[in-house]
């Protein structure tokens, strides 16, 4: 997959003009469920494709975490849309959305255990075989956990990556929400992310209601997700990150400020990384310096 870079924005019809007018966007993510597979692609998306803007096809309804294998018709539709868009990859959630024909209407968490990992890995392999481009898997936000998980979120994610060849779409807003609502160790998850498997990062806004944080995609991005993004960039270097906004679309100025904030968080992280590297040179740099010093 051609690596993504820079700061991107999720394509919504309400943001089509903003995206069209923004030459600095690194990439754009398109929701598969917003496209009619039998109709022509919306003209603004065709234009982005012609301009060479990297497009990612993002899906919410495959249900990779379900006990049943992913629906072949949904996979065919995703494959068709990915081809028509010229998408660089397809992303989907580590979640289940239906069981026995009943749709949940939500992204529900997968029980964290070996059995679920086995099913998930098999479903991911089926999806990868049907898709013409790489598949990236996204961590979700949830308000509850299944009882007695046998591993942490970080271990579960690492296990998933080791059992499949899929890429990772790390949602730092979801990570932030889980840390607040469930006490997830966000730092451990960040530490488990291998750079070569990271496709891109999601950033989104949310709001706190009482004791719970809701990842709404309809409010400004709080500092929490940006701090996690900064920490990720401090560990891995520059990472491609994308802002998701699904409702209460902000003014052009507010949107531009959010994109700049994401860019700034990455820049801060990269600066921290470089500062740490200067203070504590990497082993190979040390070795090279050592050999230069020898007569």
């Amino acid at each position, binding site marked *: 997959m051609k690596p993504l870079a820079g700061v991107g924005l999720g394509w919504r019809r309400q943001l089509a003009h903003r995206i069209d007018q923004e030459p600095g966007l690194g990439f754009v993510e398109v929701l598969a469920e917003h496209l009619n597979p039998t109709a022509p692609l919306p003209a*603004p998306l065709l234009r982005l494709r012609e301009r060479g803007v990297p497009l990612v096809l993002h899906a919410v309804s495959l249900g990779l975490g379900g006990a049943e294998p992913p629906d072949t018709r949904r996979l065919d539709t995703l494959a068709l849309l990915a081809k028509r868009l010229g998408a660089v990859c397809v992303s989907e959630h580590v979640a289940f959305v239906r069981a026995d024909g009943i749709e949940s209407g939500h992204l529900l968490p997968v029980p964290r255990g070996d059995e679920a990992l086995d099913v998930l890995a098999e479903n991911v392999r089926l999806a990868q075989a049907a898709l013409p481009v790489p598949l990236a898997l996204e961590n979700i936000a949830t308000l509850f956990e299944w009882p007695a998980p046998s591993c942490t979120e970080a271990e579960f994610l690492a296990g998933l990556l080791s059992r499949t060849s899929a890429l990772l779409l790390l949602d730092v807003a979801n990570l932030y929400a889980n840390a607040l609502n469930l006490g997830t160790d966000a730092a451990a998850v960040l530490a488990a992310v291998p750079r070569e498997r990271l496709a891109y990062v999601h950033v989104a806004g949310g709001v706190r209601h009482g004791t719970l944080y809701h*990842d709404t995609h309809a409010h400004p991005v709080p500092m929490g997700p940006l701090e996690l993004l900064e920490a990720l960039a401090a560990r891995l270097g520059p990472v491609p990150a994308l802002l998701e906004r699904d409702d209460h679309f902000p003014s*052009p100025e507010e949107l531009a400020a959010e994109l700049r904030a994401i860019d700034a968080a990455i820049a801060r992280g990269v600066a921290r990384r470089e500062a740490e590297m200067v203070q504590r040179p990497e082993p190979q740099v040390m070795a090279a310096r050592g050999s230069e010093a020898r007569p």
Partner: protein
Amino acid sequence: MNPLDWQGPEFLSLYVPLLIGGFLVALLIRHLLRLPAGGPMYLSRRTDPYEVAALDGPGTLMEAVVGALIHRKVLRLEGRRIATGEALPADAVSVERSVFECAATGDVTLEVLRRALIHDIEYYRRRLSQKGLVLDEFRARPLRLLPSLVYGAILLLGLAKVFVGLSRDRPVMFLVLLVLLGSLGLLVLGRRPWRTRLGDATLKALREEHQALRTTAVAGDASQALDGREVALAVGLFGPAMLIPLGYSNLRQTLHPSSSSSSGGSSSGSDSSSSCSSGDCGSSSSCSSGGSSCSGGGGCGGGGGGD
């Protein structure tokens, strides 16, 4: 072989196709005379939205200005009345000042605005005329006259036959109705054309260039995602009907008090397209958005979760 001496059915078998063909020829002459023609003129992406709106027609210009000022809260709706709101920005252009002053002094309808903005409309017409996009009065006159003369001559032939028939005590009712119906064509041909063919091509190219703006404008819930200039551009390019999905349907009713139920475009002066459309009116509604159908699944994440 004088056609006026022909029997009624023989004459009608000639006259009906002649009347229809004559009207089409007159339309063709009118189209060909809307010069200059040619490929679309390049207008920069930062083009003046009011100039674009004026290219669609004076009515579109007026609604674009009012829509943009309402969006920027410089004007506001008080029931069915447009009132002034926040202070007019220092960088407001002349036509915005004129509309603001109009709103400050009384009721604002399109008819009132048309009188109040006569100099601003003339300013934009002259600017566009200098670019060859809009017809000036000198070029517009023969364009109305010549096709009308061609078509009028055919109507006169029918009228002459009516008199001949009357003088010979023949039934002429059908021919009278035909001539009366055909006279409506003169109203069409007598309208003042607004754009040149170059103006048509340029407006069409601008609409294609800004399809993303149209997608956003008709998406609903997108008003805040656009600034005042973009609202004006959306109205200017795709017609005043854009104000409805942008959340200003009450404004349309206020500006058009006599036709409050109407939601289509209103006031383009062109032959080939009206303000309600992109490209040719009738082929697409201003409130449809290409293939961008939204079908479920949009609300990603759930129960406080997210994707």
